[in-house]
């Protein structure tokens, strides 16, 4: 089985811990790359900075993208992903705290595939994570690499 990588873009350590816990509890065993800000996320995707020289043949099967991030925020990351030939077809799930209308509209305008608000209650959080994994890693088919 090929290695389906998840890219988790999350600046908050507690959210990171809870998300990883939820993924594990949902029996999602894929490798999870964690980027702690927008720059790190872009470095991973384009093989720059700390990720210089990585095999760009491996692209995430799902990107969980928080909106409020240091340096380069989530919407800017999304914009860069959609603007680049190598990444424009990657499934991006906005996974964030707010459900402010402007966030939803901007996200979809920039080409987000999905928008999920992180539930406060952990059982619901777990359920959301499980369903995301089931849908984007199992059911959904990604576009083939050029």
């Amino acid at each position: 089985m090929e290695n389906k990588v998840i890219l988790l873009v999350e600046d908050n350590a507690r959210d990171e811990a809870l998300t990883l816990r939820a993924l594990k509890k949902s029996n999602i065993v894929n490798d999870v790359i964690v980027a702690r800000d927008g720059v790190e996320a872009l470095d991973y995707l384009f093989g720059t900075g700390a990720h210089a020289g990585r095999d760009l043949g491996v692209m995430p099967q799902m990107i969980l993208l928080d909106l409020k991030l240091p340096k380069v925020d989530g919407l800017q990351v999304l914009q860069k992903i959609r603007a680049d030939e190598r990444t424009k077809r990657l499934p991006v799930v906005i996974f964030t705290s707010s459900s402010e209308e402007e966030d939803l509209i901007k996200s979809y305008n920039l080409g987000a595939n999905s928008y999920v608000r992180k539930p406060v209650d952990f059982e619901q959080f777990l359920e959301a994570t499980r369903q995301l994994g089931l849908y984007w890693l199992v059911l959904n088919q990604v576009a083939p690499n050029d």
Partner: protein
Amino acid sequence: MGARLVVASHWVLHKDEQGKPRAILEINNDITERKQMEDRLTRLATAVEQSGDSIIITDPAGNIQYVNPAFEQTTGYSSAEVIGQNPRILKGGQASPEYYKHLWETITRGEQWQGHFTNRKRDGTLFEGEVTISPVRDGAGKIVSYVAVERDVTERRRAEAEVRRLNEELEQRVVERTAQLEAANKELEAFSYSVSHDLRAPLRHINGFSQALLEDYADKLDEAGKGYLQEVRSASQEMAQLIDDLLQLARVTRSEMRSEVVNLSELAHAVVAALQAREPERTVTIKIEEGLVTHGDKRLLQVLLGNLLGNAWKFTAKRAQAEISFGQERQDGQSVFYVRDNGAGFDMAYVNKLFGAFQRLHSPREFEGTGIGLATVQRITNRHGGHVWAEGKIQEGATFFFSFANFKEAEDGEQSDLTRGR
């Protein structure tokens, strides 16, 4: 009796060579018509003399032949000073040569000219006049004089200018106030945005790590310890709900209004379906009057019905035969909507507290809630120019009425309001 005549009599005495009177000749001329003509002229002359508007009569060359007392009063020139002069002595020097050229071309063609002058009085001050100049022709059609009637509109113009200035000032003030409001709104939006993002995260962590404790350290916790952790989790959830409700209240206040025809019955059905889906075990008799429409912002009205029907749903939870109805009735000649239930009701003594934010008439032990829902409902009706009020009795149920006074009912003039709403 015959008609009365006005006659002019001339008596002529005829004498013979010696100078002795021989005969008296009486010549009577019927001057009735002339007398009538004179009377008419007197009347017209009086009208001209008494007129409040300045009247100037000139010869065909434009030299003043006559001015009335109003002219003297307005301009400060006496009749003697201006007779034989050209009216250009009044020129305020503001109109272009083309303006006068057009005037002369019009009246020498034999047409009436109407216009506006800024004229100069004898003392040098300026006044504004609205002028009509008409040519006067003789029997042969030749222009023999011009009559100019000029009304002093200085005061009126000044008043008009003042009104314009006040209007502009008011507009300027509206612009400034709007900018202030927009800035305040922006601030509120930024605040809401930050609350929405940053306040929920810690709650999620409290909840999540409490759950982690419950799961990973279950063997180290007795029942009381587990119970405490459950309380921590519930508290975090309640606070999250509170934040969401507050954000909605803020959104209801600041969001832009769109007016369209909204089918409230359809919205009510959707709300009830969602409530039923969340608690499928409950049996509630729902009566929704069909075809109830109003004008308003659909999303806000959805929030309104969501709150009222949600309340009715919540407060009938302990009824074996819960009933909720949504309909319309007439009160004092006005049609009002209502949401009625046979639930826990409330004490009318506290009806004033009902719509205040954070006011609750039931303890969380009885019914959960944040106390923001009805405040939100009231803001929504306010924003629609309407209002909301309630009737209730403890243990017998509650009815919430709402109306949108300033929104025309859809039946009359749906067409025009539809186009206005877009």
